C-alpha cells in the first residue's frame, strides 16, 4: 500500500502559499532546472519521497511538482522543474535570492519502508528520475535493509539525462546496479542506446519478491510494466506515479480525478493493481 503521511494542521488556509527562497539553481538539461529552496521565515516543508508540492510563481500561477530532494536533509526543499509553460518557465527563471510560493506536501509516498527486506528496481524515463531520486536517497541511506537495488534510466539523448554527475557516482558504487540508455546518441556517447525497457530482462533482481518504482511518460510506464510483468513481478509491488491537472492539491477542485481516485489525495503514487484497469480505458 502506498503510504500517505498525515497532513499538518495549519493556521494558514490550505490555498495560501508559504514563501521560500531559492538558495541554489542549477541547470540539468536544455529545459530543466533544479532549484534548492529554504523557508523564508517559516517552517520547513518536508515531503516524503513521492510527494509533491504546489509551486507558485508570483502573479503567474501554480503547478504541482514532485519533490526531488534528499529526505535525510529536510532543511532543503529540492525541486527539478521542466520549463514547458508560463508558470514553469517563471519558476525555472527564479535566481538565488528569489522567492517562490510553496504549498504542501501533498499526496502519497513511495513504499520505501515497505520494500525493506526485498530487492528494489527503480525505472526512470526522462524527467521521471526527478520524483524517484528521493526514493533512491532513502534506500541508500539504509542500504543494508534492502536486497539488490537496481536503477534503470532512459532518456531521449545523452544531453537529456538528469543528474549526470550523480549518475556517475551512483554507477561507481558496488552495491547499486545502474543501467543507463538513451533513445539516440551521436559522437562521443559511449553508453547504451535503445529503449529503457530493454534493460529490464537482464537487470539483477528477483522478480518474485522485488518492488518496482516506475516514472516516465505514460507510454514508457506501460511498456516498462509489461517488461516487469513478463519477468514475473507481482502487480501489488509495482508502483507508478501518475500526473493529472491540479488546481488545488487538497481534494477540493476536482481536476485531478482518475476514475475513482483523486491523484492529489490517493496518488500520485499508486500500486499497479489499483491502476491497471484505469490505464486500460482511454481518455479516463
Amino acid at each position, binding site marked *: 500500500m502506498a503510504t500517505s503521511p498525515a497532513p499538518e494542521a495549519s493556521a494558514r488556509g490550505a490555498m495560501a502559499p508559504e514563501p521560500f*527562497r531559492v538558495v541554489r539553481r542549477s541547470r540539468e538539461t536544455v529545459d530543466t532546472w533544479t532549484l534548492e529552496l529554504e523557508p523564508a*521565515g517559516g517552517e520547513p516543508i518536508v515531503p516524503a519521497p513521492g510527494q509533491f508540492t504546489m509551486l507558485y510563481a508570483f*502573479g503567474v500561477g*501554480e503547478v504541482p511538482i514532485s519533490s526531488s530532494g534528499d529526505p535525510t536533509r529536510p532543511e532543503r526543499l529540492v525541486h527539478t522543474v521542466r520549463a514547458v509553460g508560463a508558470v514553469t518557465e517563471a519558476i525555472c527563471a527564479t535566481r538565488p535570492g528569489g*522567492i517562490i510560493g510553496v504549498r504542501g506536501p501533498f499526496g502519497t509516498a513511495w513504499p520505501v519502508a515497505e520494500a525493506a527486506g526485498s530487492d528494489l528496481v527503480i525505472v526512470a524515463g526522462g524527467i521521471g528520475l526527478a520524483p524517484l531520486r528521493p526514493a533512491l536517497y532513502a534506500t541508500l541511506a539504509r542500504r543494508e535493509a534492502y536486497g539488490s537495488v537496481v536503477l534503470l534510466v532512459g532518456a531521449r539523448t545523452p544531453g537529456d539525462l538528469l543528474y549526470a554527475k550523480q549518475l556517475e557516482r551512483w554507477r561507481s558504487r558496488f552495491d547499486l546496479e545502474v543501467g543507463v540508455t538513451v533513445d539516440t546518441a551521436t559522437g562521443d556517447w559511449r553508453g547504451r542506446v535503445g529503449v529503457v525497457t530493454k534493460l529490464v530482462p537482464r537487470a539483477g533482481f528477483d522478480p518474485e519478491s522485488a518492488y518496482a518504482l516506475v516514472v516516465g511518460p505514460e507510454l514508457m510506464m506501460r511498456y516498462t510494466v509489461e517488461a516487469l510483468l513478463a519477468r514475473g513481478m507481482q502487480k501489488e509491488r509495482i508502483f507508478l506515479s501518475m500526473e493529472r491537472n491540479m488546481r488545488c492539491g487538497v481534494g*477540493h477542485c476536482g481536476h485531478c*480525478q482518475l476514475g475513482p481516485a483523486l491523484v492529489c489525495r490517493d496518488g500520485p503514487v499508486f500500486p499497479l493493481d489499483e491502476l491497471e484497469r484505469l490505464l486500460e480505458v*482511454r481518455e479516463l
Partner: protein
Amino acid sequence: MPGAPSEGDAVSVMEGSRVIGLNGLDALVGALAARGYRVVGPVLRDGAIVYDDLASADLLPAGWTEVQEPATYRLERRPDEARFGYPVGPHSWKRFLLPARIRLWQARRGDGTLAVTEEPPPEQGFAFVGARACDLHAIAVQDRVFLEGAYTDRDYAARREGAFVVAVNCSTPGGTCFCVSMGTGPKAETGFDLALTELLEGGHRFLVETGSERGAELLAELPSRPAEADDLAAAARVTDEAAARMGRQVESGDLRDLLARNLEHPRFADAAERCLTCGNCTMVCPTCFCTSVDDVNVLGEDAAERWRRWDSCFSVDYSSIHGGSVRPSSQARYRQWLTHKFGTWVDQFGTSGCVGCGRCITWCPVGIDVTEELAAIRSSDGEVNRANA
C-alpha cells in the same frame, strides 16, 4: 459538521410542531433579518424563480409554478396563492456557500519575502428560506468534500457555519424531479433548523417542524398555534402526493458498480452526439463543486491575487497536462461527468453525487436526460463500443 443541526440535538419533530399563517411567515423572515442574517430565498427574476435576497415574505413568488421538462423551463400561474408551489429553479444554495467567483488572497512581494493576506469570510451569516430536501442533501454532499476530507475549505466552512436553514417540504414536484429514486426527498428529514409544509386547504397555513434548538427558539417568537391532527394529516398528504408525482425515476441501487463496468458502453458515444459540452448541467447542479484558480497581477503594484471560480469538467482544458488534454473528446467528458456524479463520487466521498433535483435535465439545451442515459446503459449492461475497443 459545524452549524448544521443533527438528529442528535434536534427537538422531536412531531412534538412541538406548530402551525403559522401568512403573518407568521412574514414574521419569520423579519425575525431572521432582525438576528442579523442575510436572508435569501426564492424570488421572481428574468422569467425564473431564483435564489436572491428576500427582504420580506412579500417577495416570494406567490401563485407561481414552474413547468420543467428536458430543455424546458417556464413559469405558469397557479390557481392559488401558494408561496412555495414550484420545484427548484436554476439556482442552488451553492451560489452562496461556494460562490461562483471569490478572491482567496492577496499577496505582496518585497523584503525577500511574500506576504499573503487571506480574504476574510463574509461577516453576515446566511438564512436560507425555502430549501428543498434535495438541496439539503446536496449541501450535505458538498460538506463531505469541503469539511470532511483531510483539508477544510475555510471559506465554505465559515459560510456553512451558522447558516440558518428554513426548509420547505415540496408540494409541487416538476417534470424532471426524481428525488424519490435517489432517496433524497420529497420530505426534508434532517439538515434544517425549521421545516415548513405549506397547506392550502382549510386555510392557507404552514406546518412548522423544528430541527434544532435555535429553530425552536425562533419559532417561539412567531405567532403560532399547536399543530392538530388535521394539520399533521394534511402535511402527510402533501408529501405523499408529491412523492407519487415524480417526473422521472431511476433504478439507483447499484449505479456505482454498473457504471464502473460500463466505461466503454456505446451510450457515451451516443450522448456525445447530442452533448454540446456547454457545461450548463455543471453550473446548475447543486453538488458540482469543481473550481479553478486564476493567479493575477495587480496592475501598477508589486502585488498579486488568487481568485477561485467555478469550473466544469466539460471544458477541454479542464484535464490538460503538458502534452494536451487527457479527455479531448466530448464523449470522454460526458462520461466523466455522468460516471463521477453517479459512480466514482461514491468511491471518493462515500455517497452518490446526485440528489435527483432534475436541474441538469431541465437546463440542458438539448434535453439530455440522465435518467434515460442510465436506463439505456443498464438495459445493455456490458455492451462495448467497438469503435473504441
